[in-house]
């Protein structure tokens, strides 16, 4: 199976970021058609029937999420999650820079479907360039009458605002994002209530990932049946896979869900330097490593990657070749999560700190066999005890590498033993 560009359409259409080009290729026509000829419920039903699932990590059915918003509570909000901070993820970066109008039109269609009149696109603070592009795109679309007050002579209004984060991974978690957007510390909220009931300013709010929403205009245009015919029954459509690490040609590859692992790797030229594959992390730093043996022939969809012991998440494939030291990998991810722990709950805040100390010793050649055992002990203190999933994300790499590549840990500990031996000799 090869590439198929439903959201990365700019790869086939030059200058698609330009409003005129986007409109010439059918852009904003679906929003106009929806607002002028369709009921909001019809738009919602198409998206529900398409089986579209969230591309931000959890794979939750998008139409179902929209339908959780109570009907008669106003105002409502659509929030676009453009925080993209999971190590190894860079698809929303490309989408917003190169195909911003499709994201905006998708968000506006979502707004129409749930009865929201305002969209906030929350961008991680480092997306300074992306924010400029998005703001310019919104301004042009608005000036041309595609967005704004009383659209196409109806009484439906849709305003789109770009709003910045300022450097915090946790703000990708939807309730932390909402707190950040309200001017609070970007820490998660207790759920329930879910954002659909009480989100931004305690109003019904749908938070969707950038890529999720970019799928909406083509779905509304071509219909649910078209979309369902791509991908697999439970995971329809395409997915942008971000390939990083030890591949020949790192980058984004959009393929139908269910594409076999080998086909995807072939698009990127395979493992670099002609080396063998050791493992991948299929959903960035927060996912358990999946060893090469489990990847052979694996169709890439949410169900089957989960059955292989990991998670597809946002499909950020960090590729690790045969030379990779898994202790070093887990040290890197541990440092990330320790840095990004928001500090709200102590198992995550303290636990990631202690994990980091252990890994620092191990990679410095000062660790011992007792340190290796300590990793499991610390993990047990974190697991199931955290306020939000970040704490468990931090355990994915340490636990899975320890379980699958114990020899790397033994080597690290033995290195320390040898050094100690020399010191005493």
């Amino acid at each position, binding site marked *: 199976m090869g590439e198929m560009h439903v959201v990365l359409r700019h790869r086939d259409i030059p200058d698609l970021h330009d409003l005129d080009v986007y409109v010439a290729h059918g852009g904003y026509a679906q929003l106009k058609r929806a607002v002028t000829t369709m009921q909001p419920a019809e738009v919602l039903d198409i998206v529900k029937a398409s089986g579209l699932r969230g591309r931000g990590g959890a794979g939750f059915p998008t139409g179902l999420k929209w339908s959780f918003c109570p009907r008669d509570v106003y105002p409502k909000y659509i929030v676009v999650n453009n925080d993209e901070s999971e*190590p190894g*993820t860079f698809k929303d970066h490309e989408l917003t820079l190169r195909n911003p109008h499709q994201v905006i039109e998708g968000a506006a269609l979502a707004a129409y479907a749930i009865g929201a009149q305002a969209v906030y696109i929350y961008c991680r603070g*480092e997306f300074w360039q992306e924010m400029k592009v998005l703001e310019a795109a919104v301004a042009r679309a*608005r000036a041309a009458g595609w967005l*704004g007050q009383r659209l196409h002579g109806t009484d439906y209004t849709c305003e789109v605002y770009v709003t910045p984060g300022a*450097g915090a991974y946790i703000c990708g978690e939807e309730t932390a994002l909402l707190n*950040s957007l309200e*001017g609070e510390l970007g820490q998660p909220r207790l759920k329930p209530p879910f954002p659909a009931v009480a989100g931004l300013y305690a109003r019904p709010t749908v938070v969707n990932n950038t890529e999720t929403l970019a799928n909406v205009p083509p779905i509304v245009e071509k219909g649910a049946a078209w979309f369902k015919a791509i991908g697999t029954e439970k995971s329809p459509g395409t997915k942008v896979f971000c390939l*990083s690490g030890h591949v020949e040609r790192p980058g*984004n590859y959009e393929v139908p869900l269910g594409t076999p692992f080998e086909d995807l790797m072939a698009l990127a030229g395979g493992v670099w330097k002609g080396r063998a594959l050791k493992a991948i992390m299929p959903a960035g730093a927060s996912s358990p490593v999946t060893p090469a043996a489990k990847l052979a022939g694996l169709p890439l969809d949410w169900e089957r990657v989960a059955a292989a012991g990991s998670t597809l998440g946002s499909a950020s494939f960090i590729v690790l070749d045969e030379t990779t030291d898994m202790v070093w990998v887990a040290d890197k991810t541990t440092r990330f999560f320790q840095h990004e722990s928001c500090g709200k709950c102590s198992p995550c805040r303290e636990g990631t700190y202690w994990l980091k100390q252990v890994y620092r010793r191990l990679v410095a050649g000062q660790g011992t066999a007792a340190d290796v055992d300590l990793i499991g002990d610390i993990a047990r203190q974190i697991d199931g005890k955290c306020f939000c999933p970040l704490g468990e994300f931090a355990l994915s790499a340490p636990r899975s590498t320890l379980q699958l590549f114990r020899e790397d840990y033994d080597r690290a500990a033995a290195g320390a033993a040898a050094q100690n031996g020399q010191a005493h000799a």
Partner: protein
Amino acid sequence: MGTLQTTFPAEIQAAIANYPPGRQASAVLRLLYLAQAAYGHLTPEAIDEVSGILHMDPTQVRGVAGFYTLFLEHPHGGYVVQYCNDLPCALRGADDFLPVVAEKLGCRPGETSADGLFTLECVMCLAACDHAPMMQVNLEYVLDLTPEKLDALVAEWRAKAAANPPRRPPFGFGPPSEMAAPHG
């Protein structure tokens, strides 16, 4: 009126207009970026001015400023270089390239060069792992780094700085949007 309000009066209004009436606290991140641009870094006066404009408790604004990595609480060089050595970039040699960056800028990670021009920081994933080694300089992406590319850039930055001392601080969120209709 404080330095922020005299420097960016229109930008402040435009920033607040992005949010519904009474929800001006939502503009705190935008205003902190502006304050950082006006004051150089987030001094206590900068925090107080932002709190005053948004009718927020200064303690809350201080907390918010401290929570995020892009807010600077100390003076920095004119060019803040945020070099990524997180896992995906490191798999493609980012750790090995770091000493090259440090040498060319004349400062180690966490430090500012003696001429005050560069501050080097090692940061987490910047969502451009397919272009490692990479960095952001005052929030602009610099991708696919090589020693030659870095030499050329450093020369360019030095020349620019000689003609026109780089404005401290390096980044502020640019002129905010006047795009969507202001709320209210």
